[in-house]
């Protein structure tokens, strides 16, 4: 599970790293991903091609995210907006509300059940649902793709450069606005992929993005903003903590284990495990 939450928080952290904006609407992109998957799997494609559907969902949301970014986020950097700090937060929150309610308007408040990916199986002694296993594998593949993208390709390295030094990188001729758009698209696509992968597990309905986005932000707080490895570690930690808690203490309290971890981490390291302290003057 931790691996899947990782996709969400990776997206959030990634976008933050590039643009210093927290996209509060990530859960909604997850939800869109779920819906797209449901639609594709139920009608044209059928379950056998689930991975195509996941990819399609991710790609579709990539473009949607890029579109949103150009419309709403880019102006932050082209000087059209006065109050940058609150603008980003307010606009992404408003977008989240907008998309969430639009989903109800379009699709109705119903819960859709996409068909299962696979039947239940076992990993060693632990029973695991086929869906979760498939989702896990999908997530791992995506994560490795992402890693490959960031570390090995030119695009990835450019993005790293933008995250590290926004102004400096422009002197190397990098069109920062294009990369902003790219980053936003990638981030939202990751969320959508998570949504698509988890659609059979959590089912598909307008507020299905909430569960994962809460976890996603939890991980960000625990890991600290700006560090990709931190997100990985924190997501695994969260996943482990939740599962252990559910098994050994009580499954009904599952939501809170993560937060206990969060409170503990924050009291020791207020910027998160790997967060960077901000310079003041």
């Amino acid at each position, binding site marked *: 599970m931790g691996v899947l939450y990782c996709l969400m928080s990776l997206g959030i952290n990634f976008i*933050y790293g590039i643009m*210093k*904006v*927290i996209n509060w609407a990530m859960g909604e992109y997850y939800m869109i991903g779920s819906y797209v998957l449901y639609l594709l799997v139920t009608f044209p494609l059928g379950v056998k091609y689930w991975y195509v559907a996941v990819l399609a969902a991710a790609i579709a949301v990539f473009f949607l995210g890029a579109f949103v970014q150009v419309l*709403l986020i880019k*102006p932050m950097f082209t000087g*059209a*907006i*006065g*109050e940058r*700090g*609150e*603008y*980003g*937060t*307010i*606009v992404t*929150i*408003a*977008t*989240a*509300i*907008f998309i969430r*309610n*639009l989903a*109800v*308007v379009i699709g109705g408040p119903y819960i859709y059940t996409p068909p299962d990916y696979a039947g239940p199986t076992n990993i060693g002694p632990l029973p695991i649902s086929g869906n979760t296993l498939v989702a896990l594998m999908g997530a791992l593949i995506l994560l490795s793709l992402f890693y490959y993208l960031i570390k090995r390709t030119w695009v990835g390295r450019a993005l790293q450069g933008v995250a590290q030094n926004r102004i400096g990188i422009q002197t190397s001729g990098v069109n920062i606005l294009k990369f902003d758009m790219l980053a936003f698209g990638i981030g939202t696509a990751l969320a959508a992929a998570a949504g698509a992968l988890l659609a059979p597990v959590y089912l598909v309905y307008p507020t299905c993005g909430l569960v994962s986005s*809460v976890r996603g*932000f*939890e991980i*960000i*707080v625990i890991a600290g*903003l700006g560090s990709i490895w931190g997100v990985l570690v924190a997501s695994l930690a969260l996943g482990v903590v939740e599962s252990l808690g559910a098994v050994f203490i009580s499954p*009904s*309290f599952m*939501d*809170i284990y993560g*937060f206990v971890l*969060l*409170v503990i981490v*924050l009291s020791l390291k*207020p*910027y998160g495990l790997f967060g960077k302290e*901000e310079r*003041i*003057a």
Partner: protein
Amino acid sequence: MQTFKKYAVLSLLLLISLLLPHFITDYWIYVLTVAFYYAIMAAGWNLLGGYTGQFSLCHSTFALIGAYASALTIVKLGLPLWVGILSGTLLTLVLSLGLGIVCLRVRGIYLALITWAFAEVIRTFIRVAYEFTGGDRGLNSPYLFRSVKPLPYYYLFLGLTVLAIILIAVVMRSRIGFYLRAIRNDEVAARAMGVNTVRWKIFAFMLPSGLAGVTGAFYGHYIGLISPVLGEFNEMAMIIIFVVIGGMRTQAGPILGAISIRYLMEFLREWAEIRIVILSAIVILIMRFFNGGLMEFLRRAGGWVRKKDAVSAYASMGEK
């Protein structure tokens, strides 16, 4: 002359709101009373997030805490009502003090994140400790007044709203208002100019939060059944929407926004989700293009009217 006009308008509004309940149905009285609750919440958030620039996402959480603390004190400890409300207020003040201190060193985005985390932790805690708090099923909060009539509650919340308005206006007009605005504009410069940013940031945190706590406690005793829904992210988003549409960083904006939008929402009840789609779209448009909200719109309209008068006066002068 301006000040006189302002007070005249305010007195008129007050008069209207005092007399209004006798002309409208109970249902609309209920709507307005709830709107007052949101108006106070919006005005409070505006002080912290708008004027002082501390973008908090846990404002509604303090209302939630106030409501639960008060209800639980009365129900579990058997203490009288006013003790409940007092304990709700005290608890929110203490917690906001702690949170304020924690948030001293964090800036903008981090602040939003940490307050969000706080909000979720509290909300989850209430849900999870369901044996004590009733969890998702909610908690019965004893009614404030014996009778079920809406009028006393209406005047109570009207009174609270007026008090909140006065309190916030007094603060923002005083030297504290200068400090808070300076902190938002440039905290480092404010410090260099002798402003004790630590003290005033904590103040900016505690005042609205305490206000939210009191109001939340009363609200709990008004609606009778409280649940963690009161502290959901949705509630917080709505408050922000009220403030943005009404006009951030204005005195009247949040109040105006909250009341008019709540009224409108009630009006459009059948269009449950569509109305929110429209509202959030408006917020996005305002932030993107207009950034002033209703108050700015009114001000410009007023200015335009005055200009038209001036132009026509000038033109008619020419004709002589």
